[in-house]
């Protein structure tokens, strides 16, 4: 791995950082407060090509690599974690499986819509009784003529309330266990598909996290991704990629917490001097900075493994997600601590960061699941 960024990665980082500072950061508190899906942010990001970072130009994307996508997600999340995860879901949970596994026809049909922001993507995997344990899915899809008939309920789907295109997993053959799961592209206006309960979340509050309800929903046969029974494989390789971006989101949130803490510790005085002069504060800042740098390197490294065509990078991806989310929770906690009582107040950004960080340890595979993935690869 090259520890330096390439020219285009450096430029991407520079421009996305400036964009995020000027356009996203100023509205982040309001978005958190209102819980309104940030369409205005997405329109601007679509123009810059941030909604299809790794999608080739011919499908309307920007043609970058996965390290670049991670850099972009980190910078966006540093300014607004809600926007960060919306973009991550659109990029890695929606465009990626289509790009990697769908037919040419489906790619040409759906990718330009997702890259331009005309439609936003969502991912329907988790169910009321099946989260990280994919084999326990209860949703089913049976072929009837030129349609699949889809039944089931999906929960905790980020973007779902506002999305136009969904990747949905269901059993086409329950007996075959994980080899009987299939993946579909589902459009919002599909008959028999409706939205259920809207989740009221502690953090990343404007992500339109919603329940999906399928009651004899008719999915055109050609919207099957890959072949019947490919669903598990598609799900796992999609999560390998998307976990890198959750790692990147975590790094962004943690970096923001550090930046705020550095700023505050220079301004805030106690016992006649700025608190940054105290070794206890310095010790916390140093720990935070070290943890963030370690997490960032793990994220870049996982992205690098994907970019260099390593077929298996589940371990690296799981490490980046597990570690970055773990330290993001710790770093935001320390940031609140450094801010003292003010850190508990909505007048300071760290209050939001502390809430935004917690879900990182939960979605796209809990930390416990990541650890099982990591251990399994080591002990094989």
């Amino acid at each position, binding site marked *: 791995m090259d520890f330096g960024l*390439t*020219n*285009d990665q450096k430029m991407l980082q520079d421009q*996305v950082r400036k964009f995020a500072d000027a356009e996203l950061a100023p509205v982040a508190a309001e978005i958190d407060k209102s819980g309104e899906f940030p369409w205005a942010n997405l329109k601007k990001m679509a123009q*810059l*090509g941030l909604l299809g970072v790794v999608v080739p130009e011919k499908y309307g994307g*920007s043609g*970058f690599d996965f390290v670049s996508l991670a850099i972009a997600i980190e910078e966006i999340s540093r300014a607004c974690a809600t926007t960060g995860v919306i973009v991550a879901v659109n990029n890695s949970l929606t465009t990626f499986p289509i790009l990697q596994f769908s037919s040419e026809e489906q790619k040409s049909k759906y990718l330009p819509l997702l890259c331009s922001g005309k439609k936003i993507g969502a991912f329907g995997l988790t169910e009321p009784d099946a989260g990280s344990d994919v084999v326990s899915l209860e949703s089913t899809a049976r072929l009837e003529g030129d349609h699949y008939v889809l039944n089931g309920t999906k929960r905790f789907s980020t973007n779902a309330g506002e999305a136009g295109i969904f990747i949905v997993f269901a059993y086409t053959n329950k007996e075959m266990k994980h080899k009987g799961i299939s993946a579909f592209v589902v459009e919002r206006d599909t008959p028999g598909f409706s939205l259920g309960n809207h989740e009221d979340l502690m953090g990343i509050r404007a992500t339109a996290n919603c329940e999906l309800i399928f009651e004899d929903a008719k999915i055109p046969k050609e919207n099957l991704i890959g072949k019947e029974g490919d669903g598990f494989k598609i799900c796992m390789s999609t999560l390998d990629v998307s976990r890198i971006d959750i790692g990147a989101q975590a790094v962004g949130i943690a970096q923001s917490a550090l930046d705020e803490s550095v700023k505050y510790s220079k301004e805030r005085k106690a016992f006649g001097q700025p608190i940054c002069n105290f070794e206890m504060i310095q010790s916390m800042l140093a720990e935070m900075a070290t943890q963030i740098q370690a997490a960032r390197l793990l994220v870049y490294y996982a992205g690098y493994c994907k970019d260099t065509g390593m077929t298996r990078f589940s371990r690296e991806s799981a490490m980046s997600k597990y570690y970055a989310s773990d330290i993001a929770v710790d770093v935001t906690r320390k940031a609140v601590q450094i801010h003292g009582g003010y850190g508990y107040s909505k007048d300071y950004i760290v209050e939001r960061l502390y809430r935004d960080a917690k879900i990182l340890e939960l979605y796209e595979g809990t930390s416990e699941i990541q650890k099982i993935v990591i251990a399994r690869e080591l002990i094989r």
Partner: protein
Amino acid sequence: MDLIVCIKRVPQTAEAEVKIDGSGKDIVKDRLTFDMNEADSYALEEAILLKEKSGGNITAVSLGSAEAEDTLRIALAKGADSAIRIKLEDFGELDGFKTAALIREAIKDIKFDAILTGCMSTDDSYYQVGPTLAEMLGIPHATLVSKIEVADQKAHVHRELEGGLIEHLEMSLPAVFAVQTGINEPRYASLIAIRRAAGKEIKVIGKEEISSEAKLNSTLEELFIPPVGERAEILTGTPDEVSKRTAEIIKEKGLI
């Protein structure tokens, strides 16, 4: 309309703790971040807007170290067509006059209708390069430019004056415009444009290509941080005590 934009890569010192280095003539730059000079980014955007209206080519020029190529590449991604770096390392100490002379030499074979610069750079704050370059080239210039419109080989420009006044000038082309910040809203480069610009070649010219013996008009003696607050007195106590003491001081100084 063919345009040249002068761009400088400058350290971001607004929020950093600036220290003087061992030479006493420069600041410690190890851990500072660098970026395109603010006014120059407005000049670049104005050039791109002019090009979008009337076509033509934009050449971005920077006198800087190798890292300035990163800044030039951003200019290419935003809309410049070609870029030239003048090797800072070949020319030693600089002032506004010498900088203008070197830029003049670097662009001598390029056809242009206008040169846009930022009105000042945030590091040296000379306000000189634009006007000096215009004088060297024998063409008109305007400073503190807040609007540019071009029609029939004439430019109509606005200049921002003190007291909220605007001066409207008609100028013949070619000319030099030293642009004020706020004249437009600089864009962000799209990812596709970034990827295309990343591989573009930047022309680098040094002392082999620039024969002129550009000289300094002034030499830097010392850079220092003035001692602070010698005449300030911090008043402490209750609001009543502080206001009483304030009134006494004003009386003592004969101000009322």
